[in-house]
């Protein structure tokens, strides 16, 4: 029971920080399980995917209710993401833990740099203040970004799906930049839209782990319950929290995790 409580607490923290930092819980959960609880990396990834479904369901509902998520765009791009995630989930079963550790080290380095840039470069307040009706139906009232370079964005989301299921993250770290850079979607809409469909992507990858027996229910369940709790609380308090210093703290943590995973990939640590 003590271990379950610790897993619940860790999941809550991951869900909360993920919601506050806008990064999803997977990048926190996988290293927590692997480095903190000593779980094999492949099992950590499976458990993390289930937790991501929980966080998406918790925070995603909040964004839809507040008309922040572009449901139409998200579902369109999700066609690519589901295909990538399903393929990635099957592929992950063929990859050795050391290979996964190396890939995860690279992901953590990228996430850390992204957050560092976000913490150091002031947010575009003009963009954030520009009203966009993300829930407007297709047609004359639809936002202009919705059909801009769609095939390229779809291809990007296929990649996001593969990353999601191979590394146990939601894929938002790829999806949001694709929406912003390829389609010109405002950041607050891109983040909310990504959050809304993260659960669909994670589920597509999680099935492979679930039926392969790569998810320990007694690890995944308290973790998912905690992540759900944390994400619901985080989604509600995020607008009132100055996350800049949290982001800087996370950058330090991400650097440490990247090093640890890199050492694991090199076979230096167990």
């Amino acid at each position, binding site marked *: 029971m003590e271990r379950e409580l610790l897993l619940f607490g860790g999941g809550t923290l991951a869900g909360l920080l993920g919601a506050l930092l806008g990064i999803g819980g997977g990048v926190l959960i996988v290293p927590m399980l692997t480095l903190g609880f000593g779980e094999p990396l492949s099992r950590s990834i499976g458990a993390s995917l289930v937790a991501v479904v929980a966080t998406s369901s918790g925070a995603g509902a*909040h964004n839809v209710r507040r008309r922040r998520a572009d449901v139409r765009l998200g579902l369109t791009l999700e066609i690519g993401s589901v295909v990538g995630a399903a393929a990635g989930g099957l592929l992950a079963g063929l990859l050795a833990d050391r290979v996964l550790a190396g890939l995860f080290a690279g992901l953590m380095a990228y996430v850390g740099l992204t957050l560092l840039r976000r913490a150091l470069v002031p947010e575009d307040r003009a963009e954030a203040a520009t009203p966009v009706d993300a829930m407007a139906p297709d047609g004359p009232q639809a936002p202009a970004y919705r059909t801009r370079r769609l095939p390229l964005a779809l291809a990007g989301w296929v990649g996001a799906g593969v990353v999601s299921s191979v590394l146990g993250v939601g894929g938002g770290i790829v999806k949001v930049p694709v929406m912003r850079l390829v389609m010109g979607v405002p950041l607050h809409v891109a983040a909310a839209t990504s959050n809304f469909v993260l*659960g669909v992507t994670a589920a597509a990858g999680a099935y492979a782990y679930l039926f392969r027996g790569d998810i320990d229910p007694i690890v995944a369940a308290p973790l998912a319950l905690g992540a759900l709790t944390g994400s619901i609380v985080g989604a509600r308090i995020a607008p009132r929290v100055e996350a800049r210093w949290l982001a800087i703290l996370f950058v330090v943590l991400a650097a440490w995790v990247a090093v640890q995973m890199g050492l694991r990939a090199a076979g230096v640590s167990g």
Partner: protein
Amino acid sequence: MNQTADILGRGLPAAMQLGTAASALLMLIGLATGQSTIVWDGLLVLTLTPVLQLVVAAVGFGGLREPRASLVAGTVLVLLMAALVTATLVARGQGAGA
């Protein structure tokens, strides 16, 4: 636009919350009674919550007379179910699974 708020703005969150609530209940019961099969069922229900989400989206867009959006949601639903079936078949072929 108001119709979207009513159908999707309420229906989608409700579907997501219903799925997570049902899965949370199963997981809690399983953890409390020490029955890992019930916990596993709870995890499966959680991963099926997006399926419910997509069904609501497809039906909701149909009700709003947006056939393209409804078709897109239906396509994602079919792909997700295909992922589920494929994972099951591959696991059985490998002799693994819960």
